[in-house]
């Protein structure tokens, strides 16, 4: 049995699952200052009679989001080696930053080592400013981590938290690596406090099973790894919702997932039944990162959005003024329209009708309500269309990829959230697609957290001319022979992923996908001098089968 907990902004949901059967569900309100207590309360309620049957706890929490929103982030100092390129001064807008000399090039070749004197001077300055958490990032560290390790070694023992860029992600994009590393160091102290408090609570309850946290990519990682990489636990709410939809209404085709709330609607896409990921990572605290995440967009459109009638069209959201007029609010909302049409029974139908009359005094309330909900789903349809176009326009770099691009063609809509059922027929009609509103959707997020499985990704870059191989996620830099092949690379990366999975305490390794295979001959002076092999591997987000 698995317990899934999803902590949201105002309330937290928990479920107890036996396989895919919902055994118990529970909801409590949330005081963001006392997250641990909230979680422990939920666990107490959900605990099965026989404790031994509990295999894992999966947790999606707002801890990191709160830390960011409330400014409770640890001050961080960044040590950056930017090498030749864009002027790196802009990094200093994010936090105190010290630039090192030296450089690594695009093939991972060391051009010049950093000056140890400069590193020391930076460390002294950081201590003087009271900085205790640092991040170390060099350009192209995914190709060669030597300089990041060198700096870390020189500063060993001098700071409480040290995050290295190459360990966070093996993807390119220096600014994103810098900001991911910053975030990781900024969250480290808070997360470790949270972990200690929660572990203490679990001990009190006599819970000994492993505890995993949900990530933005729809997968989980054990608590132990999350305390090393707390940045991975951000933005888990949307991924809980997507995984919940998957669990409640599994799909094999392309599909649109909608989570329609009071203020916002979140949109995600399934491609052949699998949730679509961001190409690099999610934006956190206004900074682009390499934190792998499901591709979701949030539009300011919900059941309680404020509605106005302007020049023959409805302006819906993004702001919200309390609740619907049916429930005693002051401005007309889509919820009022749902009440007028008998699709939702909350509050007073008379007040809901007043709301429609307030919008269009000369029209019958039913007519206005229908127009309003048609306009509501039209906004969603346009946002989905833009999202599909954006995904289709992602850059590709080979003739084959350009010629064989496939546009996502949804076959179904899966909608959850309070207003979902009321909007079902409108959505289906606007998009010419069947629309499903699954049962138990009010605890979809907790079910999603419970059913999510471990995800891992790793990347490999081998340069047989230079005789070097890098798997940044493992801090691995190895020598290889000039006869190294793509098959060798696949086997090496498979071993790396299996090792990561084993380190996370999983006994069996799920299927590994290989992505973005790239194999290019390196020619120097009209003769082949080696090959460059680039490969990514992942355990894709999916549902546990118990």
């Amino acid at each position, binding site marked *: 049995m698995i317990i899934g907990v999803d902590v949201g902004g105002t309330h937290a949901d928990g479920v107890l699952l036996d396989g895919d059967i919902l055994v118990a569900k529970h909801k409590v309100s949330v005081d963001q200052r006392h997250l641990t207590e909230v979680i422990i309360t939920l666990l107490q309620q959900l605990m099965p009679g026989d404790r031994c049957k509990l295999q894992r706890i999966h947790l999606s929490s707002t801890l990191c989001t709160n830390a960011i929103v409330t400014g409770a982030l640890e001050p961080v100092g960044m040590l950056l080696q930017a090498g*030749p390129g*864009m002027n790196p001064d802009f990094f200093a807008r994010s936090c105190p930053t010290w630039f090192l000399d030296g450089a690594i090039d695009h093939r991972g070749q060391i051009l010049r080592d950093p000056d140890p004197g400069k590193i020391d001077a930076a460390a002294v300055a950081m201590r003087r400013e009271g900085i205790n958490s640092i991040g170390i990032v060099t350009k192209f560290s995914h190709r060669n981590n030597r300089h990041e390790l060198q700096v870390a070694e020189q500063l060993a023992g001098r700071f409480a938290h040290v995050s290295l860029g190459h360990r966070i992600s093996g993807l390119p*994009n220096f600014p994103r690596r810098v900001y991911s590393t910053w975030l990781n160091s900024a969250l480290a102290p808070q997360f470790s406090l949270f972990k200690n408090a929660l572990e203490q609570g679990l001990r009190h309850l006599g819970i000994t099973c492993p505890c995993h946290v949900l990530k933005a990519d729809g997968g989980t990682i054990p608590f132990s790894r999350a305390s090393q990489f707390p940045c991975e636990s951000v933005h888990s709410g949307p991924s809980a919702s997507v995984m919940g939809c998957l669990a409640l209404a599994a799909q094999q085709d392309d599909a649109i997932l909608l989570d329609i709330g009071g203020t916002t609607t979140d949109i995600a896409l399934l491609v052949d039944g699998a949730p679509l990921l961001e190409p690099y990572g999610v934006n956190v605290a206004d900074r682009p990162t390499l934190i792998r995440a499901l591709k979701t967009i949030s539009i300011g459109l919900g059941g309680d959005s404020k509605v106005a009638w302007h020049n023959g069209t409805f302006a819906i959201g993004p702001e919200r003024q309390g609740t619907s007029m049916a429930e005693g609010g002051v401005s007309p909302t889509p919820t009022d329209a749902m009440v007028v049409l008998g699709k939702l029974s909350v509050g007073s139908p008379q007040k809901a009708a007043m709301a429609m009359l307030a919008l269009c005094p000369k029209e019958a309330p039913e007519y206005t309500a229908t127009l309003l909900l048609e306009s509501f789903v039209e906004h969603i349809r346009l946002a989905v269309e833009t999202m599909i176009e954006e995904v289709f326009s992602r850059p590709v*770099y080979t003739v084959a990829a350009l010629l064989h691009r496939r546009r996502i063609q949804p076959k179904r809509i899966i909608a959850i959230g309070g207003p979902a059922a009321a909007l079902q027929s409108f959505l289906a009609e606007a998009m010419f697609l069947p629309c499903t509103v699954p049962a138990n959707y009010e605890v979809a997020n907790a079910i999603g957290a419970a059913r999510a499985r471990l995800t891992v990704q790793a990347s490999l870059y081998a340069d047989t001319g230079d005789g070097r191989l890098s798997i940044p996620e493992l801090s691995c830099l190895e020598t290889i022979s000039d006869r190294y092949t793509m098959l060798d690379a696949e086997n090496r990366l498979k071993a790396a992923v299996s090792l990561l999975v084993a380190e996370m305490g999983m006994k069996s390794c799920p299927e590994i996908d290989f992505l973005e295979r790239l194999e290019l001959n390196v020619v120097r*002076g*009209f003769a*082949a001098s080696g090959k460059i092999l680039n490969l990514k591997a992942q355990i894709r987000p999916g549902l546990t089968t118990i």
Partner: protein
Amino acid sequence: MSSYMPRALHKTALILFPAFDWCIRPDHPEREERLLYTRDQLIEEGLEDVENILFFNPELATFHDINRVHLCVPSAEKLLTESHLISAGGTLRAARAVMEKEADKAFAIVRPPGHHAMQTVFGDRGFCVINIEAIMVEYIRHHYGIRKIAIIDTDCHHGDGTQDIFYNDPDTLFISMHQDGRTLYPGSGFLHETGGPAAEGYTVNIPLPPNTCDAGFDMVMERVVMPILDEFEPELIINSAGQDNHYTDPITNMNFTAQGYARLNRLLDPDICVLEGGYSIEGALPYTNLGIILAMAGMDFSQVREPDYDPNRFVQPPEMTRYIEALCAKALRVFAGRGSRKHEAQQRRIVTNQKNIFYDTTGFHVQEKTSYHLCPECPGYSEINASGNNRHLHAYTVPFNACPRCQGEAKDMFTKSKPEAGKINVLQDRLEDIYETK
């Protein structure tokens, strides 16, 4: 967009398409690896997240887009692969981005290049089959009605293909600065090549001595290119942006740097750049391309330096500076004397040029005779006879700026021309956008 990322002053579209699965031959300079390190550098810099820098995929050019410019023998369909259509399509996407105001500027970083491809195409020459800039120029004229366009060719090799295509067009200013043709392929691009009878002075060649440094290029930009552009007043400036003047390029002999390339583009301020040559794929291209992008985007490029860059390494000897100074003065006179032979040429009605074109990739020659049928109202139409590789072409080309009388005359001539076995007769009418063969 994130307030923690830099912002480009000019909205700049990049069509970055390295075609990792296409090559002329696996060991050819034009091979899969060519833009790998450039792609890696641009992505690692985080340009995708810089506000106002946009990445677009190329589209596929149509055969109609190709036939608007070229006379392909036996046909565009038979000569071209999808890779060529994508490379040309990359420039069309760049043009569309600028013309439809999706961006202020655009840079098509695509391959294979095109500036050695002439109007008649019998095969691959100088790594080029079709002229991707020229296809873009005529596309822009056809779809957006732009007339005066300047093409500044900054590749180390003379842009002989582009020169050929626009040789008799006074609405296209073509300036090429390149390593002297006596020392480098294709062996042309001398001062005396100044344009056809209706466009005398609108082709300006600046053959620079081997080992020209940043100072020499700066001088050409300041003394020749910018003053001529000021006078010509083009509606659009295109940089045919080859990057093989770089000091590390393996097949040329110049001493230009990434800083120099960036400075050149800051000064030129082109609307559209199109990548041409450049075969120092590891030591130059990642830095020169980045420098050009930052310059176009109006961003700081001062820290874009090659790993082995040393500002004191390449100092131009004074005698070379004096030589380039004299060259600049002569080049200026070419443009100053524009149109001087026009009247004389018009008296003759028909002016004929002969040339021999060598296709180096497969190794054959084409004999070509161009007759310019001149007109007092317009640049006139041309009649082209070309033979080589056991094929014959007889074509009439009506330029976009022809008058209706010339257009009608070319049509009549085409109608009267007799089909013969082994010969392709073509009417290429850019006014009506027609390409007809028989």
